[in-house]
């Protein structure tokens, strides 16, 4: 490191040093030259990778598959940090994602390898573009589920859901909320390892802002009411509409890990239905769909719901019976699966199962036991990403159907800004 550094200094010393007393600050030219030639020891150039093709659109930038030039068998995913319209420099959302990814190191969380930069030059006004570089995962769950040739056995479904909950258990233990659970954000490697991805909307939910990263796994009282007293007021405009829990739709701002568990329930059901179970096209309709599945939203089943900001403003269907098991049984023959879903798709966030409880459910501990996905996936040599699916369809014929699924609501509520608290 030191040697790199001193070499760099030699490079620019001709222009900048010279007479000590003479050199005030660098001139613009000198500074540009300095930026162009300084070899940042901790931030490699993107040119060490070679782009293969675009595989997705994250919450703050495009994602590419790329090859490591020094090891052609190694593939990575590169996510561009969009900074074009940033009046306040490097986006706070990107900083959050980086910080959170640096903290989270777990088998079931996508691994951030490094952050790369493009060469600063005249062409980019001496401002580098940054990319987050991740281990490459071959598939995402939405892509897999949309391919009928991909068939999951019950044991394989259990493995997927178990890994999903394991990932959530880990991130919640580290006091991080994902806030954007959906099938497209669940990656699966060709060996069948599940990775939670896209922490672009994730947040720490502890008020302990003393900078203490909670590196050790601490069991949290996730299901006790006092838990909520420590949560700051967040924006409720998170989570893609179809996976958004009722508390967010009703304007709750003091929410916590249960928001991710609702999404996990939706994703779990999707393992059988193969498509999102509640495809509302407005917040109102989403609430209607939820009521039709989970029963009417009332203070009887959910004490305190009447105090939520939008409880009186939204039209909530009355006298709806809870039909979770009834409507899902045709898809899910397994009674344990139905029962677990019944505990995840619970209206009252305080009564919703947390990741730990869900992982202890009989579903995972009865035959057929969770089993490895690697073998099944070995039959599929092509990457399956949701992002790639519509364009393929468009290429065939059903152009009118190629509309993408909705993304996170911050997208829809144009002009809305995430409140920092």
């Amino acid at each position, binding site marked *: 490191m030191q040697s790199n550094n001193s070499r760099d200094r030699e490079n620019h010393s001709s222009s900048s040093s010279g007479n000590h007393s003479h050199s005030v600050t*660098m001139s613009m030219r000198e500074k540009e030259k300095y930026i162009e030639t300084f070899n940042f020891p901790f931030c490699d150039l993107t040119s060490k990778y070679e782009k293969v093709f675009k595989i997705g659109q994250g919450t703050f930038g495009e994602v590419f598959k790329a090859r490591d030039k020094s090891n052609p068998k190694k593939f990575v995913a590169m996510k561009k940090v969009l900074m074009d319209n940033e009046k306040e420099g490097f986006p706070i959302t990107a900083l959050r994602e980086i910080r959170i990814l640096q903290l989270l190191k777990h088998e079931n969380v996508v691994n951030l390898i490094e952050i790369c930069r493009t060469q600063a030059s005249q062409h980019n006004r001496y401002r580098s573009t940054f990319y987050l570089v991740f281990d490459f995962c071959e598939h995402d769950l939405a892509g897999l589920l949309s391919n009928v040739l991909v068939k999951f056995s019950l044991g394989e479904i259990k493995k997927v859901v178990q890994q999903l909950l394991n990932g959530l258990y880990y991130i919640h233990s580290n006091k991080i909320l994902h806030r954007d659970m959906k099938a497209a954000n669940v990656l699966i490697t060709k060996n069948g390892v599940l990775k939670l991805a896209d922490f672009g909307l994730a947040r720490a939910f502890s008020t302990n802002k003393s900078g203490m990263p909670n590196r050790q796994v601490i069991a949290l009282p996730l299901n006790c009411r006092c838990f909520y007293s420590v949560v700051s007021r967040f924006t409720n405009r998170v989570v893609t509409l179809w996976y958004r829990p009722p508390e967010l739709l009703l304007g709750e701002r003091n929410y916590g890990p249960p928001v991710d568990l609702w999404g996990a329930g939706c994703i779990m059901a999707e393992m059988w239905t193969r498509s999102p179970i509640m495809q509302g096209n407005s917040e109102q309709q989403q609430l209607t769909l939820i009521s039709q599945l989970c029963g009417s939203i009332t203070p009887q089943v959910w004490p305190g719901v009447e105090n939520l900001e939008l409880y009186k403003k939204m039209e909530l269907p009355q006298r709806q019976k809870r039909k979770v098991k009834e409507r899902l049984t045709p898809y899910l023959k397994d009674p344990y699966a139905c029962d677990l879903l019944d505990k995840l798709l619970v209206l009252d966030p305080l009564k919703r199962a947390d990741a730990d409880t869900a992982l202890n459910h009989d579903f995972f501990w009865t035959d057929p036991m969770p089993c490895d996905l690697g073998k099944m996936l070995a039959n599929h040599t092509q990457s399956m990403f949701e992002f790639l699916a519509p364009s393929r369809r468009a290429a065939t014929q059903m152009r009118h159907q190629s509309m993408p699924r909705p993304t996170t609501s911050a997208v829809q509520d144009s002009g809305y800004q995430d409140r920092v608290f």
Partner: protein
Amino acid sequence: MPGWYYDKKELRSTPSSQDGIDYKTEMRYRKEGARLIIDTGSKMDLGYNTMATGVVYYHRFYMFHSFKQFPRYVTACCCLFLAGKVEETPKKCKDIIKTARSLLTDQKFATFGEDPKEEVMTLERILLQTIKFDLQVEHPYQYLLKYAKCLKGDKVKLQKMVQMAWTFVNDSLCTTLALQWEPEIIAVALMYLAGKLSKFEVVDWIGRTSKHIRWWDMFVEDVTMELLEDICHQVLDLYSQTDANNTPDSPPLQSQKATNQPPPVSTQRSSNGNEKVVSPDQPPPVNVKVPPPSSDVPPFPYQTFTGAPPPVASYATPFAAPMGAPPVVAAPPHLTGPPPGPPPHITAPPPTVFSQYVNHPPPFTAVVPPGAPPFFSANAPPPNQPHRPYYPPPT
């Protein structure tokens, strides 16, 4: 991959020193930049963690770049700007610049150039690359509170001691201690110092076992008395330095006069020997035992405070003057909760946080592919066929 800790020899061969800036001047530049971060941050009601994070970025930045290449006050603003975002207490760049400007002379502010905001924005990318995107920084404060909760004794005295230690931690930001030692060790050392000065002797603590000789043995290992005293000296030496106003200003500031300006003279020799702060040939890493003078070294060898250590109250003034009022002095921390800290006080979020979303498509209207009713149409039977689109079969 290096960590962010350096020995004293490395701290003397920085880019600035290789650029012809002598050690004392560099230390002064570091102090002045750190102070601007603290003063600007305090004025904007930023929390102590935000300011401390900004200062640590600042010190790390100058391990890779010279003060001649990057004028210190611009860098200071940039570090505070980034730290604000990282610590979830964001402030607008223009507001930080405005506040800093109110604290600087016009001459010093001239280093921000014609477009100060542009200057800070360009620098932010350089800063991020330099610090390896290592955004999360820990500070001694949290350890101070953690340790204090374990100490037994007179509550009032303990609180006074913690408050004094807190002030020392604030002041330690003006040194390069954060580049030398982990926050745990700095916290122990400065609590040790505060204990000595406030005459609070820790004789018992929660969790004590027979193998613990000192209370900190519970928390840190292999910390020698030499190390603790070296850390204390580095902080105490701040108070014995001569007024910075009497020293010639740095080259980066003297854009007009600079041509005739000789290199800064070292006028900061202090009564208790500034040189002692750094002994380049003898860096004491935690694990290496330096020849032990421990037995014959008096327990409290600070010449600066001859006679009885001054009462806490008298500390507030000398420290507050150069440092700006430390947040804790105004409202002392108590041991049950964190000190007046950073309640999340944000006036307005940056306006463009989600701007990139604005043009995204409207909500998806569910499409029902032929032959597969959506899951939720009334009384839907289980579809024979999933209604997601098919991939073309692999060829």
